[in-house]
């Protein structure tokens, strides 16, 4: 099953929807059972909060990613040994190795 919509299209569709939803909320077009006070204080902050959340997520992922980056010293040592093994075997069979 092939996906027809590009990621750009999906992004535009979803963000248009979210922006419309937010605008409707902001302009009080949708009647909600919340007090006007809460609407005035919270709704204007939502985009900012979203940005902060996104930024924090990125920093967290980056930081954790770097901290937990797997190291493989044994792989390097094993490889060095194998290279020597390969070289001597190949040399004995007439291949020009360094």
């Amino acid at each position, binding site marked *: *099953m*092939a*996906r027809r919509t*590009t*990621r*750009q299209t999906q*992004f535009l569709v979803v963000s248009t929807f979210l922006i419309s939803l937010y605008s409707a909320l902001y302009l009080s077009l949708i009647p909600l059972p919340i007090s006007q006070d809460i609407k005035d204080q919270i709704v204007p902050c939502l985009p900012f909060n979203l940005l902060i959340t996104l930024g924090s997520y*990125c920093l967290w*992922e*980056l930081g954790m*990613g*770097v901290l937990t*980056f*797997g*190291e*493989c*010293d044994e*792989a*390097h040592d094993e*490889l*060095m040994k*194998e*290279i020597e093994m*390969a*070289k001597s*075997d*190949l040399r004995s*069979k*007439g*291949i*020009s*190795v*360094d």
Partner: protein
Amino acid sequence: MSKYSVILPTYQERRNLPIIVWLLARVFAEQHLAWEIIIVDDASPDGTLEVAKELQGLYGEDKIILKPRAGKLGLGTAYIHGLKFCTGDFVIIMDADFSHHPKFLVEFIAKQKAQNLDIVTGTRYIPGGGVYGWDLKRKVISRGANLLAKLVLWPGVSDVTGSFRLYKKPVLESLIASTQSRGYVFQMEIIVRAKAAGYTVGEVPITFVDRVYGESKLGGDEIVSYAKGIWMLFRAV
């Protein structure tokens, strides 16, 4: 019995090539698999082709296939070129400089068989995987680049720029026909298109030993072209 083809694009790999071929041959022999290696050399001035011919003498012309090109034409086209001569059911692409160790092919092949996957890709970023020889800056860049790709492209794999992969031959042929980019954005494009097209992709953690011999090629230009590549994929796939 399934046959496995390895496409090895080479440029100035005279020292590494015999050893990587030896490691591959050993894995295939131990696993009793039918195999071939297609070496696509881009007119290396250091004698890579000459040592490839010696290897051909040792392992046989049916196992080591030489398809050199007249000049340094790049990675993407090297795979396209090499693919034409593959007679295997599966195609493996990997680097020739030991950053990708043939021993992982055992797991790649087992995983592919177990789940009948279209593609198996090696990843450095999941538990069991890792790198050797990277300083902090390199790690930050690597994680940052991968994070950017994840945010913009939702690729569904943990390592988008990884180039150690096993493909079913028809899958690779179909994907390569639709790719537009070159360089290592090419690797990203293939896997993103693969997921978008509904191919099944599995991941195996790999250890990536960086630059045993040779120098790393990561500069400001690369970073810019990477970002451009992501933007292109965002719009096209």
